[in-house]
């Protein structure tokens, strides 16, 4: 019973925040000359709905025409023509990881928002190794390219190359996160500001790399070579689930599985290991940790390393599983910062992240599609900023409520005493 109450307690404020956020944002929809209900229906349908979704109801149940006449199906599993949920999950994958990255950092009291920088550096690392490494292997094996390589070699490469790419990306991300961490621990440099700056530097570095040394063709927009097929994390709709229409249109793949595994590992790390414990106790002024003998500097740095690795992993998966090359401007996608927002909304709980990241991704996805109906996709960002605002008002709302409740109880008790004394 108490668990249920705790759950409700935990969910009610976020849901309230979401509803309030949507409500306030509708003002902007009106200003842009559209109808809020229509816009939101479109938004949610494009983000979470099946083909042919038009109203809120369609999100759950769709009417389809079959040979036997009209039929009602459960929308989330109705995959004809591809389902938005697949696309949403594809986009949620890196988001889950960057949110975990932020959560791990925050849990150690480090307000690092360097996920963007670690993400792009991880991405470029994975890209480069994704074509350079197979090149070497093919050269060593005396083979020209993927198509002419023997099957046994390819099997081995399919296992090893992505692993190496991912590992390298995680390493690069970890190092890039460690630097501002070190500056904070040893020199007390404010990590919020330094990570923002480091992000900008990383974006410039990647921009340079894409435009010059790693530039592949003289395309209008600079881009790198594509990763070799042996490095490719084949999405479900091209690989194992080729025939299932639900997946078509989305490059959802094993990346999601990796993200979920990462989430489980992060949860275990934070709540079941001594290292995670050290990190959580370091949060705040750090006095308690120092007092108890916890090496809080080491714990904080460890947190930054893990955080950077997670963001690097996100970048690697985004490339190896989806984009397969880095295009100039990729760095501005802001997945890292979105991860911070998700972590804040989820109060750094792993379960919360797993729920909120998909919601977030779906919202953004839906907003992009609104553009074609003349509503700028920035509406998504506007909605999210209000949701965050209302979420952050939680304490205020709670306090009002508690005050009223206690006063009420006391008045009732006083009145009861009075009645008791009167008789």
């Amino acid at each position, binding site marked *: 019973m108490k668990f249920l109450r705790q759950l409700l307690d935990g969910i009610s404020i976020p849901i309230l925040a979401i509803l309030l956020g949507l409500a306030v944002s509708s003002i902007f929809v009106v200003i842009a000359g559209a109808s809020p209900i229509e816009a939101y229906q479109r938004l949610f349908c494009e983000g979470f709905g099946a083909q042919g979704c038009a109203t809120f109801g369609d999100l759950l149940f769709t009417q389809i025409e079959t040979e036997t006449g009209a039929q009602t199906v459960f929308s989330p599993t109705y995959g004809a023509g591809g389902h938005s949920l697949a696309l949403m999950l594809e986009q949620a994958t890196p988001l889950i990881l960057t949110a975990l990255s932020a959560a791990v950092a925050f849990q150690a009291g480090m307000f690092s928002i360097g996920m963007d920088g670690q993400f792009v550096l991880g991405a470029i690392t994975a890209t480069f190794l994704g074509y350079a490494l197979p090149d070497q292997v093919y050269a060593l094996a005396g083979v020209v390219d993927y198509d002419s390589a023997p099957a046994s070699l390819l099997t081995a490469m399919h296992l090893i190359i992505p692993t190496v790419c991912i590992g390298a990306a995680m390493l690069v991300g970890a190092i890039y996160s460690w630097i501002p961490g070190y500056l904070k621990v040893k020199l007390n440099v404010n990590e919020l500001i330094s990570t923002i700056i480091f992000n900008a530097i990383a974006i410039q570095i990647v921009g340079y790399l894409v435009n010059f040394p790693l530039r592949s063709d003289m395309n209008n927009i600079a881009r790198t070579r594509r990763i070799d097929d042996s490095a490719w994390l084949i999405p479900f709709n091209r690989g194992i689930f080729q025939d299932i229409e639900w997946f078509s249109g989305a490059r959802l793949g094993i990346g999601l599985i990796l993200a979920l595994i990462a989430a489980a590992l992060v949860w275990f790390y934070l709540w*079941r290991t001594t290292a995670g*414990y050290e990190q959580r*106790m370091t949060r705040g002024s750090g*006095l*308690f940790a120092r007092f108890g*003998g916890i*090496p809080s500097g080491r714990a904080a740095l460890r947190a930054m390393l893990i955080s950077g690795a997670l963001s690097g992993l996100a970048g690697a998966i985004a490339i190896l599983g989806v984009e397969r090359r880095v295009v100039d401007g990729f760095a501005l996608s802001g997945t890292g910062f979105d991860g911070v927002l998700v972590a804040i909304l989820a109060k750094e709980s792993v379960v919360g992240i797993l729920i909120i990241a998909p919601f977030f991704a779906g919202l953004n996805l839906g907003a992009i599609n609104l553009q074609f109906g003349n509503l700028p996709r920035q509406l998504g960002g506007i909605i999210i900023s209000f949701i965050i605002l209302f979420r952050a008002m939680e304490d205020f709302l709670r306090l009002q409520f508690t005050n009223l409740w206690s006063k009420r109880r006391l008045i009732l008790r006083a009145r009861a005493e009075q009645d008791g004394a009167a008789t």
Partner: protein
Amino acid sequence: MPPALEMRHIRKFFPSSGVLANDDVSIEVQPGEVHAIVGENGAGKTTLMSILYGLQTPDEGEIVVNGAPAQIAHPNDAIRLGIGMVHQHFKLVPSFTIAENIMLGIEPNRAGFIDNQREADAVRQLADDFGLPVDPALRVRDIPVGMQQRVEILKILQRRAQILILDEPTAVLTPQEVSELLAVTRKLAQTGHTILLITHKLIEVKSIADRVTIMRRGRNVGTFNAADLSVREMANLMVGRTVTLRIEKTPAVPGEVILKVDDLLVAGAGGIPAVFGAHFDLRAGEILGIAGVSGNGQTELIEALVGMRAIDSGKVMFLGHDVTHDTVRQRRETGLAHIPEDRMTMGLNLRTNLDENVVVTSYQDEPFSRRGIFDFSSVRTLAQKIIDAFQVRSARVGEPIKTLSGGNLQKVVLGRELKGDPKLIIANQPTRGLDVGSIEFVHQTLVAERDKGAAVLLVSVELDEILALSDRIAVMFEGRIFAILDAKDATEEKLGLLMVGSALDAPDHAAEKTHP
């Protein structure tokens, strides 16, 4: 002639903590009177004065100043009515000068631009009028605590306060400064000012107050002439039962030297030394009390001994090992326990539950964790053991601890620190903010540990506590350990003198004990 001040049927309830701080409290104070308000921590005296000064508004009740009813919703209202308050924790801006602090909010100005000359003159004039000389140009962060308090008093006199509220004014003063303050108080009372003195130092009440109001658990237990009550009677009224002012303890049987501190130099804030050549020994089975007004380096000394602060020069030997550069964890593993001054932010993590608090000093050992992974059932067992052994009330295994009372929180700290039979216990203000029952418990626990053979280093600003518990007493002043006496040779006067750095008359005392 109407009373200078009356507070009638004041009621104040704090919903956020569920505490009824003032329950139908009424007091009246005559003009020119020195009226003490005493009570334990949490008795409601500070709340009552906050209401008087406009920092809080009462739920019910009224205030009458000089016969006329008054609405005090804000300190500005109180100031306008001639009520001024000198707070326990000074409200001064460190980087401002004395003049700037005194005139804060009422700076003489021309259309918003401050007239520095007029300001300095006004302050000098004020100081002369009341016989409390100060140099207006000194910066507050550079002057001693006694002078800071003087600035605070001048601040309220500048605003023409007739009713002065002094909140625990002697808590941070040396005995010398205390008598200076009491003299000032007497003089102000003679010139027609009314003084309200909030304190829990009953001896001061006897020496300076005309009348005393005793508060207990939010109620006014009674107002008496100070001369009619003995200190013991006052104490009993404060707590509602007979209080033992001394602990029953057997004489100490000191054993081997557990801790040896040699010529310690420890830096404080900004690199300026806070501990200058501390030098003493501590043996098993004895309690060494370090007395001294707070701010004389005790905090830095403790932090250096436990490993939370770097030692610039000197040596600390613990059980024969040189631990001068050891980490906190290494010292704890050698057998050190630390009961910190601040249980809320240092001793405990109020954001989490009992289990995680209790295991912070031992989580890397078996059986609590194996290869980095926790075994929570053994943590829970430990938590339960502590709850039982130390009778921690309203605490449950796995539950958050932030709702526990001060006394129960301290019991959790004690339980954690004392399990594992530490050889050296460093207790820094272990009873600060606790009610009398909890104070008794802490004292008994410390003596019990001593009898088990532990060495106990007790730092406290409460002389009663030092005198009650210690076998030997050291006095700390300006970073130095001045004199170490046997408890039987120590009296309040002697300690008081040492606390201001004056050597005792007899030449064979102070000088020798500092450098054996």
